[in-house]
């Protein structure tokens, strides 16, 4: 189901993404989402904008791999992952993870695991625009 996992420049609708995941099964009883958004500060600096770069092909493959492993290792029914690239304003959506399961605890656990794994294994890089110029972020907390 490739449309559930993708990288795109344009914004996404949280509602539409949740509906897509929920359409997979009537057995879904709980949905957890993680939404990452553009924050206006980093390490004490004011941030006025963000720009994300990815490794085309490899980044998509890593996201698909996270979904497959989540389905295998957690008791969830479906997972959707959308990450934006390109210029993103402060307050805008960056990334969305939707985890759906019969019972809430499985969805919470899979969602938390998936965003941590995304930050660890997916070749995506963030550049922040600060008062001192543009800075590549080399580590994600």
């Amino acid at each position, binding site marked *: 189901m490739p449309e559930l996992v993708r990288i795109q420049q344009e914004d996404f609708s949280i509602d539409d993404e949740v509906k897509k995941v929920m359409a997979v099964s009537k057995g879904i009883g709980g949905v957890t989402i993680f939404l990452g958004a553009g924050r206006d500060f980093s390490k004490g600096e004011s941030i006025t904008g963000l720009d*994300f*770069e990815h*490794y085309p092909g490899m980044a998509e493959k890593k996201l698909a791999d996270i979904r497959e492993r989540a389905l295998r290792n957690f008791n969830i029914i479906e997972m959707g992952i959308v990450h934006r690239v390109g210029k993103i304003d402060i307050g805008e959506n960056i990334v969305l993870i939707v985890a759906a399961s019969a019972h809430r605890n499985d969805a919470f656990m899979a969602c938390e695991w998936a965003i941590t794994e995304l930050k660890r294994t997916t070749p995506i890089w963030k550049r922040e625009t600060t008062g001192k110029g543009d800075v590549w972020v*080399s580590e994600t907390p």
Partner: protein
Amino acid sequence: MVTVRFFAMLKGLAKTEVKEYEISGPITVGELKELIKKDFPALAGLIDSRSLLVSVNQEFASRTTPVKDGDEVGFLPPFSGG
């Protein structure tokens, strides 16, 4: 021909996104790093950093992974997605 791709801050330091290398036979990622250090002195300090990951044909690789004609090698600074 081996295609080397630089990403994020490496791209800025190398002043290019892509560099192609003619190789006469298979080499290792470690040997390719030595070629890159000669061609891009600005990358010399980063290229051996433990936090820098390398991919061969979009799969994570190690210093001993073989690189052959037609391969694509990515030099990947620490990720900051999400």
